[in-house]
C-alpha cells in the first residue's frame, strides 16, 4: 500500500503530499504523523500541499485533525503551498482551518515553525509571526 512519506528534519517533520489523497491514505498519514511525533519528540509538522489541485471537505477536516492532534503532542502544524483555487474552494465551503498556521511556501513555513518553536507557546499570535 502506498504511503505518504513523513520526513524528519531536525526538530520538525516534513510531509509532502504528492498523490491524490484517498481516505485510507489520509487515515494512515494521521497514524504516521502522530507516531513519529511521539517517537522523535518533534516540535512542529510542515505539510506541503502545493501538488494538490483538489482539497475536499474530508481532506480539510483531516488536516485540521492532524493540527489538533499535533497540538496535543506539543507540536505546531503549518500548511504550506495551498493553490489559490483550493483556498477559494475551502472558504466557499466554510472551511477556514482555524488553529492551523499557513504559509506561502516551504521556506516560509520552516521560518514560521522555527519562530514559533523559539517563541515557546506564543505561536499562533499574528503580531509576532514575522521576524526578519
Amino acid at each position, binding site marked *: 500500500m502506498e504511503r505518504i512519506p513523513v520526513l524528519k528534519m531536525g526538530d520538525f517533520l516534513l510531509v509532502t503530499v504528492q498523490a491524490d489523497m484517498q481516505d485510507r491514505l489520509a487515515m494512515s498519514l494521521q497514524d504516521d504523523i502522530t507516531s513519529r511525533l511521539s517517537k522523535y519528540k518533534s516540535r512542529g509538522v510542515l505539510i506541503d500541499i502545493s501538488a494538490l489541485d483538489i482539497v475536499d471537505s474530508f481532506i480539510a477536516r483531516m488536516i485540521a485533525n492532524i493540527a489538533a492532534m499535533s497540538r496535543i503532542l506539543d507540536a505546531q502544524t503549518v*500548511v*504550506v503551498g*495551498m493553490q*489559490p483555487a*483550493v*483556498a*477559494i474552494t*475551502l*472558504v*466557499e465551503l466554510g472551511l*477556514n*482551518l482555524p488553529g492551523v498556521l*499557513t*504559509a*506561502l*511556501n516551504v521556506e*516560509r*513555513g520552516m521560518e514560521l515553525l522555527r519562530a514559533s518553536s523559539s517563541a515557546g507557546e506564543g505561536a499562533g499570535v*499574528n*503580531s509576532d*509571526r*514575522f*521576524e*526578519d
Partner: protein
Amino acid sequence: MAGPSNPPSLHEVLSSNASAILARWSEEQLRSGAIRRNLISDSQLQQESRELLLALTDSARNGEYTDISGPSWAPTRELLAQISESRAKQGFTASETATFIFSLKLPLLHQIQERYAAAGAEASFEAFWTATTLIDKLGLYATASFLAARENVIRRQQEEMMELSTPVVQLFEGVLALPLIGTLDSARTQVVMENLLERIVSSGARIAILDITGVPTVDTLVAQHLLKTVAAARLMGADCIISGIRPQIAQTIVHLGVELNNVTTKATLADALAVALRRLGYSVQKNTPGQQQGRE
C-alpha cells in the same frame, strides 16, 4: 374592372405606391415627435426610411405577411436590427425606435384604403388587418433588437468595470494593497479574491491590505465577502489588514453585529501600511536636514 374582383396584394400596394407612402411616412415621423432632430440628420433618416421600405417591399414579394422569421424576411430583419442598433447608440429611447416603425402604419393603411375602395368591406378589413399585424411585428422586432443592442453595451461596460475596479498594487516588498471601489457583490468578490491570491503567489507577499475607502456601504453580505477574502488569503499564508473604515461604516458594522475580531482593522491606508512595515520588521525614520547634510 379589375379592382373589385381581384384586389391588389399588400406587396402590390407597397411597390406601386412606394414614393407616396415614403413621403407620407416622413411627414408622419416628424409629426409623431419621435425623431429628435438633433440626434439624426434628415438625409440619414430619409435614407433609412427608403431602404427599409424597399427591403420591406422586397420581403413581401412572395406573399408571406404573417411570419417574419422566414428566410424571405431575413434582409428586412437585418436592416431593422442595424437601424435599431444605431438608434440605441445615437441615444434614442426604445419607444422612439418603435414609433419610427409604427408611423409607417398610417400611410400604408391610407394606400390600402384607396386601392381597396371598390373591393368591399370584408376584403379591406382583411387587408387592413394583415398590414397592421405585419407592422406590429416589425415594430416589436425593432424594439427587441434595440434592447439587445442596449444590453450588449451594458454587459460590455460591466465587464470593463469589473476589470477596472479590482487592481492589486504592491506598496512595498511583501505588502500588497487592494483598493476596493464600489459595492462588493459575490461576482466581484470572486474576481477580487482570485486576483489577490494570484498576486500573493507571484509576489510572495506576506501582508495584504484591503482598503474599503471606496466601498459606499458595508452590510452583512459585504462584510461576509470581505471576511471570505481575508480567510482565503490566510490559507495562502498572507495576513490581511482592512483599512479605510469610515466612522459611519464602523457604526454600521457594530450595529449589524458583524464579527471582525480576527482581522486587524485600521482607519486609513497609511496606518495599515505602517502596521504592515512594522510586522515585516522595517522601520521608517525621518531624517532631519542636519543629518542629511552631514551624510552627503
